[in-house]
């Protein structure tokens, strides 16, 4: 770290890394990227499932693979970085106070700052759900961290509130890890996450999804004992007499994400609850020279889109650094970012109709066309239908034990061929047993010598690759 930079980027997730890479390409190399975690990648590192990178890399990658790909580009760009570095303050004149175990306390002056600090999860407390405060209540991303990065087991019988993507993804993760997932509840009358995730993460596992239902009370004095739910009408008003009790020891909330911009308070910008920070047409906040992008500005559906936004902000910052006068002529007024329109099409009636007619929703692209034996709007859709009739198969992702930096870590792995859904949990057990039999202390874990290895379940051999 130096005391001065043309640009300091706060946050090394997809938006921040993509911005840094783009800056270099635009000829600006006096850049510092800061991240508070010991590794780059942000939340990607805990998203061990596939579905990343289709637009940036033209491949279907897992979160860690996508993070390593971006990290590779970032390393090639030879940009300064500090990891484990926490920005405590950004003054309105862009002086940053930073601490990191490697370099202690530092003050840095920046001509421009890109804030790409991501988001945090809405909690049970934000929803103001009544009841007691036992343990066993998690947010979905928090559970994802504990399970995927730490290998902790959180409980046995799980309820998930919210049909956001993290909740759906976690339903599948839990099933692979041998948990019982009792149900997913969604307060709204339609699906919040991607249809692809509902099909692959719930339907394939016969996990029920109940629309218009919300947890209204948490029960348990020490550990969670269960939840009361209630039905709500289309205006989200509770329906009297609809209370129902579900015993469970774990509940995950996947009920929305909130841009994490607390650091901007030190620059004099206070977000109002539920409202994003205002930026101008160049993603510059009302604090001069401080730009905002990625999930810290608004919640993106895909990591690729956050990365794209990081790239465009890099262009604006490059412009700003070259000529402030010229930059100013392109700027229009500050306004809060308008969120993406909500897709209400995938509601209970839609899924009920599919069930009755024996048709399916195609998950190859986000359009969500209805496909059946009679036909599909495109050949890919027809192929999807034919394939899906053969059974429930998907890529398996899980983790194995490893060591990183002298401490326990998990290594994400994915199968190189699809696995029948019923075999996923037995396969996970088989892998854990195989891993336990090997005693390698290598940093790459028990299967360190191989980039790939095989595991057997239900009489079938499946090849896996290490994603990290």
């Amino acid at each position, binding site marked *: 770290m130096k005391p001065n930079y043309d640009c300091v980027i706060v946050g090394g997730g997809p938006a921040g890394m993509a911005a840094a890479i783009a800056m270099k390409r635009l000829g600006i190399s006096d850049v510092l990227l800061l991240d508070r975690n010991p590794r780059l990648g942000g939340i990607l590192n805990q998203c061990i499932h596939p579905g990343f990178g289709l637009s940036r890399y033209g491949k279907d990658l897992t979160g860690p693979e996508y993070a390593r790909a971006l990290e590779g580009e970032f390393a090639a760009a030879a940009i300064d970085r500090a990891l484990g570095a926490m920005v405590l303050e950004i003054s309105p004149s862009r002086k940053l106070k930073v601490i990191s175990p490697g370099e202690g306390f530092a003050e840095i002056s920046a001509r421009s700052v890109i804030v790409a600090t991501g988001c*945090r999860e809405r909690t049970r407390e934000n929803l103001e759900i009544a009841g*007691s405060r036992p*343990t066993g209540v998690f947010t979905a991303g928090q559970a994802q961290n504990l399970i995927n990065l730490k290998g*902790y087991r959180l409980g046995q019988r799980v309820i998930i509130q919210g049909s956001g993507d993290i909740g759906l993804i976690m339903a599948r993760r839990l099933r692979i890890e041998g948990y019982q997932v009792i149900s997913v509840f969604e307060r709204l009358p339609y699906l919040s996450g991607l249809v692809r995730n509902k099909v692959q993460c719930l339907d394939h596992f016969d996990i029920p999804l109940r629309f218009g239902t919300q947890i*209204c009370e948490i029960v348990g004095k*020490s550990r969670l004992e269960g939840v009361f739910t209630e039905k709500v009408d289309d205006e989200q008003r509770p329906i009297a007499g609809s209370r129902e009790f579900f015993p469970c020891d774990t509940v995950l909330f996947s009920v929305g994400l909130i841009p994490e911009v607390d650091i901007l308070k030190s620059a004099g910008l206070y977000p109002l*609850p539920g409202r994003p920070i205002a930026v101008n047409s160049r993603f510059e906040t009302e604090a001069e020279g401080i730009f905002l992008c990625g999930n810290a500005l608004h919640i993106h559906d895909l990591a690729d889109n956050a990365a794209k936004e990081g790239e465009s902000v890099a262009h604006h910052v490059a412009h700003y650094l070259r000529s402030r006068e010229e930059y100013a002529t392109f700027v229009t007024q500050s306004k809060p970012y308008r969120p993406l329109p909500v897709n209400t099409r995938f509601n209970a009636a839609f899924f009920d109709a599919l069930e009755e007619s024996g048709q399916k929703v195609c998950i190859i692209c986000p359009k969500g066309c209805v496909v059946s034996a009679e036909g599909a709007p495109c050949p890919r859709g027809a192929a999807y239908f034919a394939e899906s009739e053969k059974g429930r198969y998907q890529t398996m992702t899980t983790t194995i034990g490893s060591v990183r930096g002298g401490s326990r870590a998990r290594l994400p792995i994915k199968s190189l061929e699809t696995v029948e859904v019923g075999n996923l949990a037995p396969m996970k057990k088989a892998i854990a047993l195989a891993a336990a039999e090997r005693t390698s202390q290598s940093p790459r874990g028990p299967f360190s010598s191989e980039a790939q290895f095989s595991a057997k379940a239900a009489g079938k051999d499946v090849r896996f690759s290490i994603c990290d």
Partner: protein
Amino acid sequence: MSYDILIIGGGVIGCAIAKELSLYSLKIALLEKEGDVAEGTSKANSGVVHAGFNVKTGSLKARFNIEGAARFPFLCEELGVPYRLTKKLVVAKDKSELPYLEKLLEQGKRNGSQGLSIIAGSAIRAVEPDIRGEFALYSEKTAVIAPAEFTIALAELAHANGVEFHFNAEVRAIRRIGQIYEVSAGDGSVYSAAMVINAAGLYSDKILSLIEPHDRSIHPCRGEYFVLDRVDANFLRTAVYPVPPADGRGLGIHITPTTEGNIIIGPSAEYINERDDLATTKPVMETLKREALELMPKLRDVAFIRSYAGIRAKLFVAGGSSNFEDFVIEESRINPGFVSLIGIESPGLTSAPAIAAHVAREFVAPRLALVPNPKALTTRRAAPRIADMSAGELSRACEANPEFAEIVCRCNHISKAEVRAALDNPLGTRTLSAIKKRTRAMMGRCQSGFCLPKILETMLEDYGMSPESLVFNAQGSTVVVDYEA
């Protein structure tokens, strides 16, 4: 195990008494049923150091409130804990409520409460620009503290002076053998002592029942709160109260800035059946919001990050009046040396230092020689916090110990070094709640979303705790069931 004195209850009262008596050469043990001090009412209240105008003239409540409040600024300094002189407004919506303010002012003056005046209109706005209301009683001596931290500080000082703290030691049976009390506790031990001080708060009536019949009963009265995100110091400087409801249950739903820069709203007042029913309820949450927003509409601009409940130990005496009972602090007539403190509700926190001095003087001194312990410490230093450090201090701290530069809690800026200090706390308690109260981790906007994984990893891997032993507070409040190697 044999002692001079056994204190039952590790709330603020038990810990204040422990600290007071630790200044003398006495052998003392404190028994607490939970895994840490400040696990009951003492961690879930408004944290207000009252000026003494809300309490009936001539009562013990009035006397100890005034005496206690006067000690607080010095005591907090000695204990190394925050004391924020917020001052206080009791706001009358309109002229019809003015007589209540006048009554409070009169009562305050009779009690000896200083710095009171009635102000109106623009004078209110000069104190708090965004508060509604036409008239207000302005109290310039009201302050706020961090009640759990304060209780912990008292306990740590007592511990440094030799008081033993026994956790998960719920008192199950007490018997007197001659001049000695034998106390059997849930930790499997039997403790004996010449004196027993029952400071069991919500359970003080039950503890007394273990040794003699009596006519007092504690009725739990729950108060629910909201916690708001941290705000700029000028957003709200003053504790703002409505005119108290006439039923005597509490002081009304008020808006209080905390020592950490958050705002709390509450408490409600509702009699409940179970003494440990800390659930929050939807109708009360809605009422809290509505009433607070009436007082201060600008609260809409702040995020509500948490709710919680605390329980008042309301005393009922058979045949007594229903809405005012004074503190009961007395020695048993049939069991000499058995002292009970019952019904220590608001202003119990404010009164704690005075109550402790009173117990030492009135009940302990006549039975046991109060010989000052020459080695006793009178001050305690808090563990360093990076959030409170200047740039220079932070720079030196990070250099001396790189774990000060390793952030665990991003919301409240808490380092790994602070979490370690909390895990190594002198009382020897290692729960998530103990870390939460000592560091303020898990209390921020994310409500443990980001810091919990790091804290669990520290406890399981650095400290080698087993998943079964890693609990939030109560036994069974596990977070992780197991983990894969």
